[in-house]
């Protein structure tokens, strides 16, 4: 296993990068020791980038026989303490759900990239955000959580890849980078700011029991009390992550009368819509969760106190909106605008949704200001 100190130095000039390739290179620069994947649109370029770069750096690359194969190779490599990246798109992530549950239970760090496409089923290859439930509420069986990071630009994706490795290793948990087809396929000029997270001696990794007692990485605990103890341990860890790792960004919220809540590609559409709405005198702002789990519940609740209404914009039939409603409660009305199937909402239709939301909320008395 080659430790990552030998990759090319990062460029300082802006370079035109495709999202999938930028994510792949960011993982390489972040010290990814092993990558496993399987071809699926719209993430195939990530696999292809790794196919070229990983072997030339003496690192591990395998195109697996299936997503099941890929994620379980990742599980095995992660058990040895390697820094592992696995990537796929929505239908493939469903197949990986089993191993995500096992890795959460076995406390194995691994970063999984989901470049979301339209669903359900085989769906489409267009961009989508319809895997929010799957990503944030658990892919597989059992009581577990997975930190989910949602970039909304390629530069941010580069940064969050390193963050994902840091979170994964700090908390011994699989961690997901949730992108969508636009993020994966779009090209943007970026000055990539690569980061190489510190290597830590874990003390649990499997290296062969030379000069120490054997170690077992496992998820089976047949005694109910033993399993409950393990669950308590996991839940305590999740509470720590909820306290320490919440990330979000706000734009033009200071004077906003109405806030859009959106992440990823939807947030970029919202940003344009907000400028247009402001041109027409409607003071809108953007609340953008960066961690979808842990969700920025408290931050959003306090923003809601300062606005008249919330509009949630998603590339889905309404998934993020459920967490927004839980956070906002009955402080202000929550509206929703979403498109599905690979259709990206236009700024124009988001402006219309803002106007409708505004008209509805303006007519309501404001009880608690």
């Amino acid at each position, binding site marked *: 296993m080659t430790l990552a100190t030998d990759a090319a130095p990062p460029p300082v000039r802006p370079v035109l990068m495709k999202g999938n390739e930028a994510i792949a290179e960011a993982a390489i620069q972040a010290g990814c020791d092993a990558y496993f994947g399987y071809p699926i649109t719209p993430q195939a370029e990530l696999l292809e980038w790794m196919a070229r770069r990983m072997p030339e750096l003496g690192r591990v690359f395998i195109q697996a026989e299936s997503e*099941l194969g890929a994620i379980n*190779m990742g599980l*095995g*490599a992660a058990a040895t303490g390697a820094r592992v990246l696995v990537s796929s798109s929505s239908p493939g992530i469903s197949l990986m759900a089993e*191993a995500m549950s096992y890795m959460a239970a076995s406390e194995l760090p691994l970063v999984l990239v989901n470049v979301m496409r339209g669903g359900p089923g085989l769906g489409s290859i267009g961009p989508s955000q319809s895997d929010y439930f799957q990503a944030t509420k658990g892919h597989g069986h059992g009581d577990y959580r997975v930190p989910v990071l949602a970039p909304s630009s390629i530069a941010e994706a580069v940064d969050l890849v390193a963050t994902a490795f840091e979170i994964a290793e700090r908390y011994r948990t699989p961690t997901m980078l949730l992108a969508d087809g636009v993020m994966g396929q779009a090209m943007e000029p970026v000055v990539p700011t690569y980061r190489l997270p510190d290597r830590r001696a874990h003390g649990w990794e499997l290296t062969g029991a030379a*000069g120490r*007692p054997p170690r077992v990485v496992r998820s089976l605990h047949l005694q109910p009390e033993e399993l409950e103890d393990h669950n308590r341990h996991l839940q305590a860890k999740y509470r720590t992550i909820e306290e320490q790792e919440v990330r979000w960004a706000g734009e033009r919220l200071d004077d906003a009368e109405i806030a859009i809540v959106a992440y990823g590609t939807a947030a970029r559409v919202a940003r344009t819509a907000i400028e247009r709405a402001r041109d027409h005198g409607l003071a809108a702002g953007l609340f953008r969760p960066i961690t979808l789990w842990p969700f920025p519940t408290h931050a959003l609740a306090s923003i809601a106190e300062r606005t008249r209404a919330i509009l949630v914009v998603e590339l889905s039939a309404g998934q993020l909106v459920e967490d927004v409603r839980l956070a906002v409660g009955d402080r202000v009305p929550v509206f929703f605008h979403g498109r599905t199937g690979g259709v990206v909402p236009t700024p124009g239709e988001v402006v219309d949704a803002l106007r409708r939301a505004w008209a509805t909320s303006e007519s309501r008395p404001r009880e608690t200001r």
Partner: protein
Amino acid sequence: MTTTPGLRAPDTRRRIYRRPEILADRSTHYCPGCGHGIIHRIVAELLDELALGPRTIGVASVGCSVFIYDYLDVDFVESPHGRAPAVATGVRRARPDAFVFTYQGDGDLAAIGTAEIVHAAARGERISVIFVNNGIYGMTGGQMAPTTLIGQRTTSSPTGRDALTAGYPLPITEMLALLPGVSYAARGSIADPGAIGKTKAMLRRAFETQLTGGGLSIVEILSTCPVGWGMTPTASMEHLANDVVGTYPLGVMVDRMASAGRAPKPDPAAED
């Protein structure tokens, strides 16, 4: 009665049977007559004899034998059902200096895990696969497996396995032996001490295949499940020796390292 000091007879006893160091000093959870105890023991003997313990990473699979990590004192990772060859692939690629084996039952390897074993074999992964075939799902209560014999009664084939509706026993090791990535494939049994000795020799060859840079090595070991079969341990061993081998013939199917001249063939003169 008194003894006279200094007049004790010299101790001429020789210890010819001992617990391998790798084998944990504890009783197992396996049922009476189960073959896993025998197989665990010969695996432990070989890890000792080849001094592999300190560099071994085992992959435990789903089934009765998942608890192998309680009985063999080496590093272990537990795999999801059927995925052990993929997990072992990740382990071996990330740690090329490790000795890596999977320990899988027939439900795990020959049913839910067929894709993983076939493609690990196709890639020629440098892992050793210990494939314990008792023709039944033991842990879940004795249901039919792909390896169940025609006519065999199980809890999910109560009138006996009917080829018309449940198909035929799967000779997966023969299938794997076709692949050039498989350096060694053999089938042994634990029906009697002679068979156990031969099986141990197969396992040794499989382990040596990995140690000398070969591709995937697999030893299928025909084993018993007295509880699942509804037989006494003795009757199970007789059934194994007399009936099961009719469907699953014993022997070495392929030894590509030997045929490529990369390791000495056993000297025919030394046999018998």
